[in-house]
């Protein structure tokens, strides 16, 4: 089983969520995060002074899924999350050894 962590633009969340739903990926966990990458920060100004804010709001989506579904999910996220501008974000994939459904205690693939 794999864990997919996708960092996307906050205003792409609705689209990505819907795209995932369409390919049958329902279980997701979402976090508000802030990020820095190649994207330049933004400037805020208060009382005549500029302040550089380099951590920009991003949304992180965490999905644990079966190995065979990873590719579809990644493609779907890339497709809907892309604007082509710097700041679109990243996807990280790693291995998960065990999944447990708290409600039933089920484990493994069927707990996803």
């Amino acid at each position, binding site marked *: 089983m794999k864990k997919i962590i996708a960092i996307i633009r906050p205003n792409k969340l609705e689209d990505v969520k819907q795209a995932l739903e369409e390919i049958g990926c329902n279980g997701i966990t979402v976090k508000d995060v802030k990020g820095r990458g190649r994207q330049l920060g933004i400037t805020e100004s208060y009382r*005549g002074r500029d302040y550089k804010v380099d951590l920009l709001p991003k949304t992180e989506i965490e999905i644990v899924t079966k190995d065979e579904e990873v590719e579809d999910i990644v493609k779907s996220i890339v497709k809907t999350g892309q604007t082509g501008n710097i700041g679109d974000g990243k996807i990280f994939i790693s291995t998960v050894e065990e999944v447990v459904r708290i409600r039933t205690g089920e484990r493994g693939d069927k707990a996803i």
Partner: protein
Amino acid sequence: MDLVLNSGDTAWMLISTALVILMTIPGLALFYGGLIRRENVLNTIFLSFVAFAIVSILWFIYGYDLAFGHNIYGFIGTLSNPFFNNVVESNALSTYAPTIPEGLYAVFEMTFAAITVALISGAVVERMKFTAWLAFIPVWLTLVYIPVAHWMWGGGWLAQMGALDFAGGTVVHLNCGMAALALVLLMGVRKNTKLLPHHLGYSILGTGLLWFGWFGFNAGSALGATNLAVSAMIVTNSAAAMGMLTWMLMDKLKTGKPTLLGALSGAIAGLACITPAAGYVNFTASLIIGFAGSFFAYYAVSSLKSRLGYDDALDVFGIHGVCGIVGTIGAGIFATTAINSAIKGGLLYGNPAQLGIQLLAILSIGAYSLIMTLIIGKVIDKTIGLRVEEEQEISGLDITLHEESGYRLS
């Protein structure tokens, strides 16, 4: 003519008094509270609330008498009715405002003392010991505010010279600005001096309440429901509006975008600088004064402060101090007998001497406030200590000084 209580004047002064109280708690407290780091929001607000409470009590124990009691050598009043004993009971009308009860004049004046002290706190937030602030309040009230109020408003030497300060350009704004400067010079710079407001909604609300309350402050200073009160209300509002638009323009020119905090700051600047002139000038003059106050405050805040390097956290000197000066000069220039027949008018109306008197008032009150506050601050620093531990400053004062936190939103 027999002096009798005028119920209309009394009604207006009752509500004006309540309005000025609203300015401090929660108006100013929230205005300041929105601008600092989240970890200090409660402490910042607390400084205003506790200042208000302490002044509320001391004012009636001895403050009012010392400021407004029978004049001694032009410097201070006499303590004749400690604990406000027998003032209300006597049913006397105020000698300063002969259509309203003396108690009403006293409580109205109390609100000015309270907000002046609370205003100072804006400079020292995020790093002052709470106990040091508790000690500072009564000492500064007694040694600085009360004498200065007496000189200008209680029949003291400046009043005798004919200095004009309708509602507190010198007694309130310049005074708190210089005291703020003195304290920050003693306390030094915070570890993090960035002005990144944590919750502008509080400051928006605070500004709204300040603007609203300022009608009590300025139009209330007419001491009755008169045409003069109306005039003061109009120019107060227009100077605030002009101050707001001026700051927006400066923002646009300097950083490229008008900001809401800038607009609020400009409004406060406009309100502060019309204060000493509110009962003396017409609508057109109010636009000029509002513009000038906001303009100079903008420079003080955005350039002067960083150039001189003092850490006046929320720009008490930069806005209130500067605007107190601008407005007091403005009164000396634009005051006219057409608006207020009790005065001689200013420079533009053939009385250049007035400007000299205004400058003398600025210099004497400014210097007195600065020097006295330096002394008071130094003494507190040596005894109690002015500044919190570094660790407390980093972790934030709410949790370290009060064991509370401002938000539990998740």
